């Protein structure tokens, strides 16, 4: 994985000192809270309902064991002994003291990590495919491209005060594990007719109040023009994105209001000008970064055999293991969705254990997924059983990847000052109601996503089943949505009808899953049956 050189290290070190100075000035009263707010936000520090929350960037979701251990250390030393992995492949801590924040950033900088631009109206952490570099279905590793974008976007002077936040995702496979088209800019690496690698750009996707699937605006941007094309996209947005209403300020609204053709025309005009300016790193820079993402030293003789005589292990393998490009190896997903647990939470002890297992079994590498799980990307099949036993002892072996209890949930009203309803207790109750693994497996792949308000941090628009918490005359009320997907078959979920109480919405989920079991045809997932049968039939079952 990528390692900082002296330049990268100096940048994060300087940022730590800058922020220490800003915190000192805030505490001394030299900065007003209004002036301090965008500064702390650009360092990932939010003020939540009860305390400060610090969001730490995990660029493209990739971590070393050493970095993972530091995340555990921070949880122990500065927080309440746990951290929360997020839908943007980051981690956040919910109980941070303002005066500790500079020290935490210094600790992070000591392992080549930071919290730069994890919030604020700027370019956020670049996300990617959690199976990058391990899966057979990619045409290249997308992470060197994401790292080029990370460096370019860090402290970008022109794009630090955009109309609204800005999120990139980069993938390199036709299978989309990163919800790429639900980002402000989604990039898919592709080959052109000459066999060169380049970037296909999708612009103007997003969730929030007005969900949109990003349209493709260019089928191929060469590697050595990536940055000038991205700058052109951002400049048109920075100049013309709406600033009068924060709910209409995302680039998706600009692209929608101008129309894809007109937005694209303006970008192309800007690009024609900008590509003359020498903004792009030379191809040698991409080559330099790519060197860090070479395959680890796989044992080419490793056996593909797996002893599945332990039935619990066999279930976990069947559910949580994905195919690796290297024979004899596997991609293992550690589910952070135990029965009754908080989606994405991990204790410092669990974080340490995952770090240790990565060191021992996965060439020192871990990934965070946008579904709030952890991946050990390169595990030799012959080691899987021993590793699984250790995970199981630590409560880290739920065999529920992509099943109904592998839900995404935002922090909701338990933490967030924007929320209208709680998300976590609902996710916990659903995981209890559907706890029977046999039943979950019978339902098959089912992406359940819960947001506690219309800002959609829990991705409810992209859920096969989505739940949106709203405030109805002072009581929490939950709307049910069906038919969304954040994958390569991206679609936006639709609301079924009037909302429910917390228990009512769980009953409604049972009703729709029962209908699915009754109606499904051979090989159909829930989403496939829904798409074939249509909303009306599901509505009728729910509301009678």
């Amino acid at each position, binding site marked *: 994985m990528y390692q900082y050189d002296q330049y990268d290290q100096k940048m994060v070190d300087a940022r730590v000192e800058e922020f220490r100075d800003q915190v000192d000035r805030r505490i001394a009263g030299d900065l007003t809270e209004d*002036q301090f707010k965008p500064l702390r936000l650009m360092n990932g520090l939010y003020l939540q309902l009860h305390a400060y929350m610090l969001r730490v960037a995990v660029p493209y979701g990739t971590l070393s064991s050493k970095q993972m251990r530091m995340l555990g250390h921070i949880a122990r030393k500065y927080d309440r002994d746990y951290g929360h992995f997020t839908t943007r492949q980051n981690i956040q801590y919910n109980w941070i003291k303002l005066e500790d924040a500079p020290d935490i950033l210094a600790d992070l900088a000591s392992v080549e990590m930071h919290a730069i631009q994890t919030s604020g109206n700027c370019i956020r952490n670049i996300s990617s495919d959690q199976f990058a570099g391990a899966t057979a279905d990619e045409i290249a590793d997308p992470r060197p491209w994401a790292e080029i974008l990370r460096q370019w976007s860090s*402290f970008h002077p022109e794009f630090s005060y955009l109309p609204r936040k800005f999120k990139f995702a980069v993938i390199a496979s036709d299978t989309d594990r990163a919800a790429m088209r639900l980002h402000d800019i989604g990039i898919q690496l592709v080959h052109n007719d000459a066999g060169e690698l380049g970037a296909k750009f999708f612009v103007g996707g997003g969730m929030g109040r007005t969900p949109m699937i990003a349209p493709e605006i260019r089928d191929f941007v060469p590697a050595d023009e990536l940055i000038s094309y991205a700058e052109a996209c951002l400049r048109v947005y920075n100049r013309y994105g709406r600033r009068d209403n924060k709910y209409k300020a995302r680039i998706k609204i600009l692209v929608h209001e101008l129309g894809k053709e007109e937005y694209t025309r303006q970008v192309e005009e800007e690009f024609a000008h900008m590509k003359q300016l020498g903004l792009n790193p030379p191809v040698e820079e991409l080559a330099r970064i790519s060197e860090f993402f070479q395959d680890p030293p796989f044992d080419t003789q490793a056996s593909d055999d797996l002893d599945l005589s332990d039935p619990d292990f066999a279930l976990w393998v069947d559910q949580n293991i994905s195919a690796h490009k290297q024979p004899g190896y596997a991609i293992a997903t550690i589910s952070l969705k135990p029965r009754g647990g908080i989606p994405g939470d991990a204790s410092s002890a669990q974080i340490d254990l995952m770090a240790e297992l990565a060191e021992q079994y996965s060439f020192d590498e871990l990934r965070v997924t946008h579904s709030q799980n952890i991946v050990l990307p390169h595990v030799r099949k012959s080691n899987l059983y021993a590793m699984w036993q250790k995970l199981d002892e630590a409560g880290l072996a739920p065999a529920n990847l992509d099943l109904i209890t592998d839900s995404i949930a935002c922090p909701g009203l338990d933490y967030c000052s924007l929320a209208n309803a709680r998300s976590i207790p609902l996710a916990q109750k659903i995981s209890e109601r559907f706890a029977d693994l046999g039943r979950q497996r019978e339902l098959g792949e089912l992406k359940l996503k819960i947001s506690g308000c219309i800002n959609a941090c829990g991705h409810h628009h992209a859920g096969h089943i989505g739940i949106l918490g709203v405030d109805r005359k002072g009581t929490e009320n939950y709307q049910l949505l069906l038919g969304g997907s954040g994958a390569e078959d991206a679609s936006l979920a639709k609301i079924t009808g009037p909302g429910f109480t917390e228990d009512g919405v769980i009953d409604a989920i049972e009703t729709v899953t029962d209908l699915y079991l009754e109606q499904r045809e051979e090989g159909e997932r829930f989403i496939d049956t829904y798409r074939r049968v249509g909303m009306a039939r599901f509505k009728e079952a729910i509301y009678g």
Partner: protein
Amino acid sequence: MVEAIRLRDDEVHEEPAVSLDSFLDQSNATAVRIEAGEDARLLLPYLDRVSLIEIDFPAFGDGRGYSAAQILRESGYAGELRASGDVLLDQISHMRRCGFDAFAPNSPINPQRMEEAFKRFEHVYQATSDQRVPIWRHRHG
């Protein structure tokens, strides 16, 4: 009125800046002020006769002025480029990187702290109109 900060050695331009509309109506104005929502590109045909362009920041979080400054510098404008309005210590380095070389803040900025802010980051990742050498060029010569 807080005194303007200038990072230029040439003489202060005395002519007051006129609005963009007035500027476009006159054939001889040499100083112009553009508001956040106005299109800096309208000035491009006249850059050789302009000595001062003032770009207003109605609120520090309104970043349109950064793009306006970049566009003017990328097009070869070499005169004074002044940021006015809600110009604060914590944004002034970014403004400088986008080509601003003068500042007319609503509230005074401590000159020593400003110097510290300019020096804070020894290197930069991007090529912008301040012509600082980006890190990738240091790496690859």
